[in-house]
């Protein structure tokens, strides 16, 4: 089947029910997207599909044929994504870093749909798990992005 990932077209030989995550990581070698729980509970595998955040571990690959997938590898090609990464660097959000590609995808999706989210909207959208506990730094970075403070 033919997939569009990060503005490129890939020919993939996979069963229809293969999780998108396996195709991205194992078949295409894009290993920035992480495997966490495999049950859509943690968000480490978050990618964008047509600008919406989805959990690649529970997305059958057949469901994204004809749609535009964005992974962490190309996030800085996106204007919003680029701002998110800068804010992440500014706030030194990452600790071990394992969940961070998913966190960046979730923040990017939020800001694409809601450029100036309220605190409640940020809390409601940023639900990916982080075992290091970087939640405060994540929240601060997204808060800056929401209020335009990251340019200050």
């Amino acid at each position, binding site marked *: 089947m033919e997939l569009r990932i990060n503005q490129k077209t890939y020919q993939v030989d996979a069963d229809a*029910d293969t999780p998108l995550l396996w195709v991205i990581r194992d078949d295409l070698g894009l290993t920035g997207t992480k495997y966490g729980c495999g*049950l859509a*509970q943690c968000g480490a595998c978050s990618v964008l599909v047509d600008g919406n955040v989805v959990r690649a571990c*529970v*997305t*059958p690959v057949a469901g994204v044929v004809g749609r535009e997938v964005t992974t962490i590898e190309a996030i800085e090609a996106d204007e919003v994504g680029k701002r998110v990464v800068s804010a992440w660097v500014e706030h030194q959000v990452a600790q071990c870093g394992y969940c961070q590609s998913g966190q960046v995808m979730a923040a990017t999706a939020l800001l694409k749909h809601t450029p100036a989210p309220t605190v409640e909207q940020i809390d*409601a959208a940023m639900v990916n798990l982080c075992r290091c506990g970087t939640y405060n730094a994540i929240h601060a970075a997204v808060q800056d992005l929401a209020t335009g403070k990251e340019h200050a």
Partner: protein
Amino acid sequence: MNNRFARTLGWLAVPCLVAAGALAWYVTRQPVTAFEQAPAAEFDPALVSRGEYVARLSDCVACHSLPGKAPFAGGLEMATPLGNIHATNVTPDPTHGIGRYSLADFDRAVRHGVAPGGRRLYPAMPYPSYAKLSDDDVRSLYAFFMKGVQPANQANLPSDIPWPLNMRWPIALWNGLFAPNTPYAAKPAQDALWNRGAYIVQGPGHCGSCHTPRGLAFNEKALDEAGKPFLAGALLDGWYAPSLRQDPNTGLGRWSEAQLVQFLKTGRNQHAVVYGSMTEAFNNSTQFMSDDDLAAIARYLKSLPGDPQRDGAPWAYQAVAANARPDAPGAHTYATRCASCHGLDGKGQPDWMPPLAGATSALATETASAINITLNGAQRVVAAGVPDAYRMPAFREQLSDQDIAEVLTYVRSTWGNHGSAVEAKDVGKLREHTDPASSTPIILQMR
């Protein structure tokens, strides 16, 4: 005076004794079988393999085998209102199994619920359904159990039902009232496909054991399409086994015959994925049925009319704009815990992750299945030897009774769903009485 009293007593004693004698005869008698004079059985390999298929249709392994143990050596504990009983060793072991059974003995056990010596089996063995098996299928089933199954030297476990409730003879009276004793008779007005489907559904498939509501004596309220309660949906072991009739909400009204075949063959279709006890029935039985037999089942089930009075107004999808009800209780839990798979629009990702919009569990009056699957997650669906890629996780450690009640109430009242609200106390009750599903794929071996 004394004399007259004694004489009256004497006269009364006669009919009492006669009645007691008749009762004693009735409750211990050996039912007549078609194989009374059967010569010593011959075991043609084709007959053995035919019997293996009948054992698949009948899902004998479901109770008589345990994962990781010798096939058909018994041991499964089953809870009854009187106490726990255990499925028995049905391997051809001469001491603990059925190695000494003649074909007639085997038939009496399978179709009549009577073991050698006249001891009555508990109707946990679905002989009221197996009574409908054909003579040919009983003969081949016997051949399979005698020659296709390895003897296992494993003793049976006693039941823990206390005296006097453990007396078995009253079951004979129950049988007289509730268990048929003639094989399935084809209905000449119907075609061969329908009759084959009726035979499998009522007989070996024993679908009614779960899907037909039971009466006060734990009898299935109907054993064939002549009764309205037949396969009309029932609550059993913490799951609501839905209607298999043409009810659009709680039954198969929106399913085509082809979708029904797909469901029984692959465990999933655009409407639903097997879960709860049906996962076991799929893993061990329905997926092994031939395409012809599945088509027959579908034809038969699609002929059972629904009951609008019981089922309510037919469900129709209602679109809900994303975040239209962000403050509704349960909406946030749904968005963060459920929507990745089942979609913010409730449509799921057919055929892999089932829709909740229009799902039986979201429309049925009984909330048990919705609560149970949320608390405990799904067992692995193993189709053609391959475990499923996607599994419903257990939320019992992450969500409180109140969280689960709220999210399920949200699901049952969104996208046109019109199920009743879910109560936190019902979640609490099921939480106590159930365990999380195993993430290990379980397929019971027959050889």
